[in-house]
């Protein structure tokens, strides 16, 4: 490499950093930096009225899994309430991912196989809910399933039931709500994967006497797999961190991790526990994303 080229490259790298500096500054100040401060807070002692005292303590992390027996100081028992919340969050997030995949795949397939003229319109119809306020969509589904809502009003009026069918404030409500609000996140990457796919391959396989199942397994699945992985991650991650949807549809009893974290900074007044829980959630999400990146890389290096 010549000296002139070398110095031009150096200038290019310097300008890249200079141009990115404002974005990096804003993000450090109001997004990444505070995460580090929160990590420190998770190792401090909780203050009496919220906030923390500057004394090192592992109590925040320990109380995620164990709680001290009220009558027997020094004896630690499993924090059942916390484990229930974790289990509910993971269970509902997996169920949401599976349901959205199950109904999202045919939907994405349908859009991708529309004639080129009407395809953008169908895509637009999926994009509108995607960009519509999550709170508004949660309120919309709440209106439909609550006791005085559309479903119950119709059922009561038709005489099929005499008392309203209780859906809201149950795990089922949170599950329905999350599947409803996160569905577009599944359909869009699936569509992107299917859209790239040459449909003549299926017809070719079929002409060569492959069975329907063989076509699905050998031709369709390998090609749409990146879309399935991307969609699943895009639904699983926000489901696990969901706050608004479980708060409105689940009420105070059916909390998920997000609501539990929120509680520690409100009535719970246990900032170190809240900080430790947040870090735990962040680690789980990061692991999920790394799995996705690895899978995506393997996909590109093989295909």
């Amino acid at each position, binding site marked *: 490499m010549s000296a002139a080229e070398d110095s031009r490259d150096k200038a290019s790298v310097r300008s890249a950093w200079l141009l990115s500096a404002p974005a990096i500054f804003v993000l450090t100040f109001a997004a990444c930096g505070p995460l580090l401060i929160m990590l420190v807070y998770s190792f401090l002692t909780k203050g009496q009225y919220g906030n923390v005292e500057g004394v090192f303590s592992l109590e925040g992390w320990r109380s995620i899994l164990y709680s001290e027996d009220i009558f027997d100081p020094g004896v630690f028992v499993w924090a059942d309430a916390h484990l229930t919340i974790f289990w509910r969050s993971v269970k509902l997030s997996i169920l949401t991912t599976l349901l959205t995949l199950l109904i999202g795949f045919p939907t994405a397939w349908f859009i991708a196989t529309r004639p080129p003229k009407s395809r953008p319109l169908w895509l637009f119809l999926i994009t509108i809910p995607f960009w519509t*306020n999550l709170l508004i969509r949660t*309120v919309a589904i709440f*209106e439909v399933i609550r006791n005085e809502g559309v479903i119950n009003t119709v059922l009561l009026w038709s005489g099929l039931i005499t008392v309203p069918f209780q859906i809201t404030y149950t795990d089922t409500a949170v599950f329905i709500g999350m599947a409803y609000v996160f569905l577009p996140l599944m359909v869009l990457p699936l569509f992107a994967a299917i859209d790239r796919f040459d449909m003549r391959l299926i*017809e070719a396989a079929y002409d060569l*006497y492959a069975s329907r199942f063989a076509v699905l397994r050998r031709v369709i699945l390998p090609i749409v797999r990146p879309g399935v992985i991307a969609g699943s991650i895009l639904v699983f991650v926000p489901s696990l961190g969901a706050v608004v949807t479980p708060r409105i549809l689940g009420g105070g009893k059916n909390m998920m991790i997000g609501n539990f974290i929120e509680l520690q900074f409100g009535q719970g007044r246990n*900032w170190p526990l809240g900080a430790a829980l*947040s870090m735990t959630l962040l680690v789980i999400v990061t692991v999920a994303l790394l799995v996705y990146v690895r899978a995506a890389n393997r996909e590109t290096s093989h295909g």
Partner: protein
Amino acid sequence: MADRNFSASHLPGFTQIALLVFALLYLPIAVLVVYSFNAGTTSGLWEGFSFRWYGTAWQNDAVQSATLRSLGIAVSASIIATFCATLAALGTTRRKSFRGQTFIYVMINQPLMVPEIVTAVALLIFFASIKVATGYQGLGYLIAAHSAFCIPFAYLPIRARLEGMDLSLETAAADLYATPWMTFRRVTLPLLAPGIIAGAMLAFVISLDDVVITEFVKSGGQDTLPTYMMGQLRRVMTPEVNAISSVLLALTVLLLTAFFLLTRKND
């Protein structure tokens, strides 16, 4: 061999499921909008058509101030985010890959990866100590927080536009002795404009929608429209919430349509 005829667009049941999904996706939104025109005081019982709740919302001081605050924050945050994102996109596209490039990508896209509640809590901790130290309680915190999480949304369309742009025009300008600044001002920027506008609109929509981070960062009396609605939901729900939602919905659809027209013209 007629039974082996195969059409990819007609897999059994797919069309029915897809149409059902579209119906289920829009039904709740339709119900929400219909009940915003309800004359009665609860959103469950239909008591006739009226614009009553739009009027109520319009005359409600709390709604007015929350709307102005939401718009103010969204405009400021989208301007800051778009400015930062445009520079970052210019810095990270169309050049040789370099060490630290991945770091910049991860930084910029970080708000898309970290759960909102985690960022919200971290900002609460950080800003609480700044509030105590400086005594400043203003909207600056909300604008800073919104600017940060809007950056990746502004960055993506701008970067996509830059990557699709033809280098030859800029090379031609440089060959004709235009200074780098002139080339940027007269050639690059006009070509990039649709991407910048699209990025700014996405940032605006994202800022306008935020609930969780706003709830944790705001000081007392700094409700935005979504946090105001959240507060109303905790009490008795009146069709006023439906009316506000419908207006926000209309605004989103309007901006999205504009966004699609803007980005489609390029193809």
